[in-house]
């Protein structure tokens, strides 16, 4: 092999790449900027930043002690920002996107809820939740929080002495109820009445409480090591922009063919391995340099650490770099002209990074799609980087992604060599 030519071609590719300001900005600055942005959005470093609250409008048509208590409790929830509004005002606020969810407590809500608490035969009051369809997830969250506060407020009210007295009186008037049920319910209400009167703190303490509390713990590489969402976003964006660099290397080969440089290369006594291999090696080196720079930035600025195997991380990076190089070669055989190739290559790359979980984690996908994404090389790259960076897994966890990416590299390379137009 003509090693002089091989190294000269690799050096040339590296020099041309680093001389191209646009390529350098796209390869280094763009992933850092976008990864920082996404990382901040998805929690930032250690979740220390104040998360934005869900804007909720409360419409109190009931104007009861219960409804006011619920609204006060909702307003005290750290996830919500509650404003009291009239019904039409609340609806307009949701429609215009200023409020995510509006909760409407209808007239008679407290009474109806208290009755329905003990009696299945009583109609349950309906609480309309008006929500912005683009905030469906927030609506589910509000529904859960509301349930908690409604249960606490309604049971507190229902177990007050006055309320139990009212319930007993109403029970006496009821004729349709099964006598045995009636007796059982009367006994229960009587006991609640006694317990409520015995409670030293008065009726306010007599309702149901949430029978548990929750302690959140993000399970990361090591106990006490907070999750750093920058780790995933930097991995994802690194994968995306390195693939873009791969496209550029494919484009360069097409431009060289057009400019006659390919003729000059082919006229020299060089093997196909030197011509193609030098290009693959230079692409892989550039990919490694980009990863080093981007993850170096993440380490210094955002404290993203490699919590897992360092050797595994190096292996994943090297395998991804080789896969990118092969992808670039594949791009160079897709179309005959750079113009025809660029658009389709960018589209394919965006689909690959989207399915690979570079933008959003793959667990958000439906199960069938999650399974399908194992056929996408970027999925292995992102999973491998996640495993080595923030999940803190050992080298063994990198073997699968490394093997998969090397397999893709071999497949892409084989197709590229098979379809390559050697004749100039």
């Amino acid at each position, binding site marked *: 092999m003509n090693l*002089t030519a091989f190294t000269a*071609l690799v050096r040339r590719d590296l020099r*041309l790449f680093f001389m191209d300001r646009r390529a350098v900005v796209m390869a280094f600055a763009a992933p850092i900027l976008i990864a920082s942005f996404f990382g901040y959005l998805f929690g930032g470093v250690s979740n220390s930043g104040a998360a934005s609250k869900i804007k909720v409008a409360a419409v109190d048509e009931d104007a009861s002690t219960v409804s006011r208590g619920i609204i006060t409790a909702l307003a005290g929830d750290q996830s919500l920002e509650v404003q009291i509004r009239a019904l039409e005002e609340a609806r307009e606020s949701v429609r215009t996107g200023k409020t995510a969810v509006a909760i409407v407590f209808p007239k008679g809500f407290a009474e109806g809820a208290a009755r329905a608490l003990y009696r299945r035969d009583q109609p349950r009051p309906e609480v309309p939740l008006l929500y912005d369809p683009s905030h469906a997830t927030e609506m589910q969250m509000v529904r859960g929080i509301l349930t908690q506060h409604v249960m606490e407020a309604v049971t507190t009210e229902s177990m007050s002495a006055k309320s139990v007295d009212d319930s007993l009186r109403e029970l006496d008037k009821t004729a349709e109820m099964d006598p045995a049920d009636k007796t059982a319910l009367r006994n229960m209400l009587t006991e609640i009445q006694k317990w409520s009167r015995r409670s030293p703190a008065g009726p306010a303490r007599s309702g149901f409480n949430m029978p548990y509390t929750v302690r959140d713990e993000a399970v990361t590489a090591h106990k006490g090591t907070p999750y750093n969402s920058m780790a995933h976003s930097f991995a994802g964006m690194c994968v995306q922009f390195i693939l873009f660099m791969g496209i550029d290397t494919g484009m360069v080969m097409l431009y060289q063919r*057009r400019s006659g440089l390919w003729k000059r290369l082919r006229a020299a*006594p060089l093997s196909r391995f030197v011509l193609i291999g030098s290009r693959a090696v230079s692409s892989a080196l550039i990919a490694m340099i980009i990863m080093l720079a981007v993850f170096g930035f993440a380490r210094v600025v955002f404290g993203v650490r490699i919590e897992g195997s360092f050797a595994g991380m190096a292996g994943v990076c090297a395998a991804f770099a080789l896969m990118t190089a092969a992808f670039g070669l594949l791009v160079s055989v897709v179309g005959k002209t750079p113009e025809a190739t660029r658009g389709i290559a960018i589209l394919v790359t965006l689909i690959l990074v989207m399915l690979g979980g570079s933008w959003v984690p793959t667990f958000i996908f439906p199960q069938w799609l999650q399974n399908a994404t194992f056929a996408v090389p970027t999925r292995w790259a992102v999973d491998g980087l996640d495993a080595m960076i923030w999940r803190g897994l050992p080298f063994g966890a990198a073997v699968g992604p490394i093997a998969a990416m090397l397999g893709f590299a071999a497949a892409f390379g084989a197709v590229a060599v098979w379809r390559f137009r050697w*004749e100039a």
Partner: protein
Amino acid sequence: MLEVSSLHKRYGDLVAVEEVSFTVRPGEMVGLLGPNGAGKTTTVSMIAGLLQPDRGEVRIEGSAVRRETDPVKRRIGLVPQELALHDELSARENLALFGALYAIKGAELRRTMGEAFEIAGLTDRAADRVATFSGGMKRRLNLAAALLHSPSILLLDEPTVGVDPQSRNAIFSNLEELKSQGKTLVYTTHYMEEAERLCDRVIIIDHGKVIASGTLDEVRRLVPATNVLEIEVENPGMDGWCGELRALKGVDSAELAGSTLRVTVRDLVRQSPDVLGWLRDHGYRCSHIASQRADLETVFLALTGRSVRNQ
């Protein structure tokens, strides 16, 4: 010595090169002439090993190119039609890269680069980026890049396209110097006057076939018409009437380009009055008449019925 035997290349239904054979000796420059698409570049590409012929063989100094890494390829220097240079790099970096393709490095590389820059007249611009060069300077560098490994055979594919007269003359001088050094040169062009100035022999190709070859005198003798009448027609009107003119006895070809009518005739004294009479009878007015000896352009016209540059 370059020997080309029965080269044949087909792309689907299109026969790009058909049974092309010729030999070029050391110290000789042979011109491959023909219009665009005639098959000149395809022929050169097969000689350089860029294209695999369907049939036929190329022998360089008696050896055929058997594989891509065949050392015999070192004896070929290719000057592509395109400016095969990296604009972003300096002239020196370009030559260093192209030298490395032939495993030239160190002191040898510095020496050969110095010689190549000297030939191209670019020694004082060696450190400058190619992007800052004029078209002529790039052409000269394009030529210099093919000389680094001291090839014995130089393939020049339209090396003067888009070049200013000064650079063109510089390139011509370079080629004459290389010829005097005993190098074998193959020069493709559709500029007939370049071939007339530089080449010892010419091979005229059209539609992939050799239609004439030999020294300039031999080729000129292939056509009976040795004189050309150039007539400026004041009212040429629509093209299409040249066919009637060609039907006149003693007229070998007639072609109208703009308002200039070029008619090749075998006997200037006899056929000139016939041509002028035909024009008068058909209502065409002439503002100027000149005659000249048949050149390669005329030969091509006579052999094919078409002008090289109108393709």
